[in-house]
């Protein structure tokens, strides 16, 4: 029983660490998503705007997309 408890405890510690890692990952992903969402919205509003020159907008967006990735 003692050994089982020790094992359980270790496993719990392991899951705690794992959860911590996941939480961090989720946080990073969430930030990235927010960034992407902003870009997407920007781009969509640009694409929707018929007055915008197509050439210019696509150049602009591809450059900001690259910066968002980094």
């Amino acid at each position, binding site marked *: 029983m003692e050994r089982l408890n020790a094992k*359980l405890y270790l496993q719990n510690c392991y899951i705690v660490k794992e959860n911590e890692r996941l939480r961090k990952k*989720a946080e990073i992903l969430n930030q990235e998503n927010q960034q992407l969402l902003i870009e997407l919205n920007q781009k969509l509003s640009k694409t929707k705007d018929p007055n915008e020159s197509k050439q210019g907008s696509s150049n602009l967006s591809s450059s900001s997309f690259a910066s968002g990735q980094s």
Partner: protein
Amino acid sequence: MMVHTMHRESPDKGLDSGKYVRYTPEQVEALERVYTECPKPSSLRRHQLIRESSILSNIEPKQIKVWFQNRRCREKQRKEAARLQTVNRKLNAMNKLLMEENDRLQKQVSHLVYDNGHMKHQLHTVTSSTFASGTTTDNSCESVVVSGQQHQQQNSNHPQHLQRDANNPAGLLSIAEEALAEFLSKATGTAVDWVQMIGMKPGPDSIGIVSISRNCSGIAARACGLVSLEPMKVAEILKDRQSWLRDCRCVDTLSVIPAGNGGTIELIYTQMYAPYFGMQASGTTTDNSCESVVVSGQQHQQQNSNHPQHLQRDANNPAGLLSIAEEALAEFLSKATGTAVDWVQMIGMKPGPDSIGIVSISRNCSGIAARACGLVSLEPMKVAEILKDRQSWLRDCRCVDTLSVIPAGNGGTIELIYTQMYAPTTLAAARDFWTLRYSTCLEDGSYVVCERSLTSTTGGPNGPPSSSFVRAEMRPSGFLIRPCDGGGSIVHIVDHVDLDAWSVPEVMRPLYESSKILAQKMTVAALRHVRQIAQETSGEVQYGGGRQPAVLRTFSQKLCRGFNDAVNGFVDDGWSPLGSNDGAEDISVMINLSPGKFGGPSHYGSSFLPSFGSGVLCAKASMLLENVPPAVLVRFLREHRSEWADYGVDGYAAASLRASPFAVPCARAGGFPSNQVILPLAQTVEHEEFLEVVRLEGHAYSPEEMGLARDMYLLQLCSGVDENVVGGCAQLVFAPIDESFADDAPLLPSGFRVIPLEHKSTPNGASGNRTLDLASALEGSTRQGSEAGPNGCNFRSVVTIAFQFTFDNHTRDSVASMARQYVRSIVGSIQRVALAIAPRPGSSISSISAPTSPEALTLVRWISRSYRVHTGANLFGSDSQTSGDTLLRQLWSHTDAILCCSLKTNASPVFTFANQTGLDMLETTLVALQDIMLDKTLDESGRKALCSEFPKIMQQGYAHLPAGVCASSMGRLVSYEQATVWKVLEDDESNHCLAFMFVNWSFV
């Protein structure tokens, strides 16, 4: 060790003195009876037993002795087994919790990953402007998962499907891409509502993590595991379905099409043996829920779309209230077990067999929130009953009034509740809540109590008006209590409030915006209280001073409540302000001529008897301190009462308990230092609160009162003195009590409360660890920043002081002026102490530890030089660095305790300096160190050893003392392996002090 002499078959019934004795059931019963009375009977008692009991008369005394030995041994084993069982249960429950959390987090991450991929894809699509912009825009807008809407979405997607020509490779590629995306969202995401498959636990030896679908169309399963083969090899094996799927009759690849991007598309016909039906072609299943994306920005849209519903319902009738209740329940549950709030683990709260549970606090949410989850060995209904009685565990709760109770129809109950909360300081108004509370059972057998404020947006009846309170809002909060395998409950607690921080002065705002303080004060306090009661119920808690735990808890509650009443001074309690004579308004004085009304409209407040003269007077003040950790300040105030208290005033307060109080003294703090002895009464399971009796040793404070010199007693409650607790307030509250210590003794509490004000901009700041701050100050800028504020130690606390006295009509003015002066002098004392405690270079008393202090640098230079001169060895290994700063740092962080002691012939030696380890060993601070005498630290043999070696030290300069024991300032015993004593010489070779180095010490 078990002695093997029993429970064995023996032909003759134990008549011989042979090895094995068999006892009859009657004999065992007789022995057991004796055992329950006395598990370890003396040999006399054993012989008596044989003589007196006819059943046992044929058994040898030695056998009886062995029986008792074995019986005790069995008992011990049983207890140990039970203990292990309990630990096991806790660990298992914790495991379950962690697994669930893990599962949720995995879902969250996979959601995010999928979102991420989806958005990147969208971005890409939008960027390459060949696609029609209208179509892509629509896609991203509708990417919300609501199970009911999936079908709608599918319909709207149909035209697209019809348009594409699935007979050419491009069409097939598009089907393949779609299938891929959907598969990935199932494999790593939550496109299917996955649940962990029972009996498949993750762990070092498990095959992997296996989940099965729930409520999805069709049936689904997924597994994830680690394989020691190359990916391509694994793919090759898995693709050969017939080799591993026993039910697979045949797999025919009818055509192979290169996908153009390096991938391959195959069209496959598969036959499966009965009872399975042939698997469907992937093209059909692709249609299902292909847009399963949650974009966080769109949740608001959904909430908005619910608004019309809010407006429509009539919140004044039971059905309308039920709909509010159900909504609150859903929202509470999504906070308790979900991710509706952006939770972060609270620092310093780690899971483990003895931990209170998992505590998280909110980040960037509107309002502040905290949640805790823990295991309690009480039945769910009992836990609910305890937690619902908020006044019993929430110290800041003044009253809870249930104004109406409505059966919810489904077996649940809806209550409308008005709650008043004390203000923690005199600097802000108190808060109240008008809430709806919904208690009900869930389908899975767990019990839930959730609560939320009724506001103009939710609708519902208006709460009672309140003049002296600011209405705060409770967002859906509550308790989820789940029965636990093997007894006990798992409790999830969520507190989410908006305390209207904007209505308090700016300097106090952090207090109302700190989720850490909320966590400590409410969430963790609730969990602690339930656990405390559970432990008391199971008998794990020892009675203190012969009192029942419940009685002691009532004492603590009365002290807290009385102090809160004094700080708040509510008009409906009978308090009114008393103008000051000397014009200064730094101290406010209030009087209460009807102390019988104390305690407000609650049954908890019946703590005061009308015996308090004609009235009670309270002098109070609040002040801001910088860089003073609350725990350190309160600990200092507790341990060094003579630094701030006045014996005469204590005497007046104590005498007011008796019939004839003596003359009102004039306040002069520290005038007559009196010895205090602290007698512990009780402490909570986690030692965050101590109830104790302080005995002030009597001496007459003026010649005329010589005859009245007697000991005085204070009942004292001290909490929050653990420096490692994040966001905790520290408090020292005491009340004079007479020698009888009656359970219902009247208490008129006074005291201090220190609350940390944490700035929102530095979420990790105010760690409250003074030694760490000191060390970081010593190490210059290297360790700053991460642990504390921008300047290494820039945080504030607010101290609230309130002192209460009784008065008679004719003494009112003199008591008022005494109280005012007394509190003013205490404010002065605290400022002095704070200056000394604050880890700030240049402050008057602690300057010796600061790197800039020339005195400290000189002292350290003398210490190390003298050591080298006398012993020929270096104190820090190599002494190549002669820089003063480095020396100081090395000495400060030296692993052995190094202490300096004054060297005067006419006075007993006191400590003058210690490094960090030295302070740890003596359990003291640099300031308090200077009150500690060497004689009281060393034990008898240590003193003798020092005396006999003293001539040698004076001659040779140093001596080694053998291993021994000494005592910390708190009376804890410390053992050390060796002590080196050397003479510290000044630059002109004159004696400065004695230095001690205690090697390898540890608390006994």
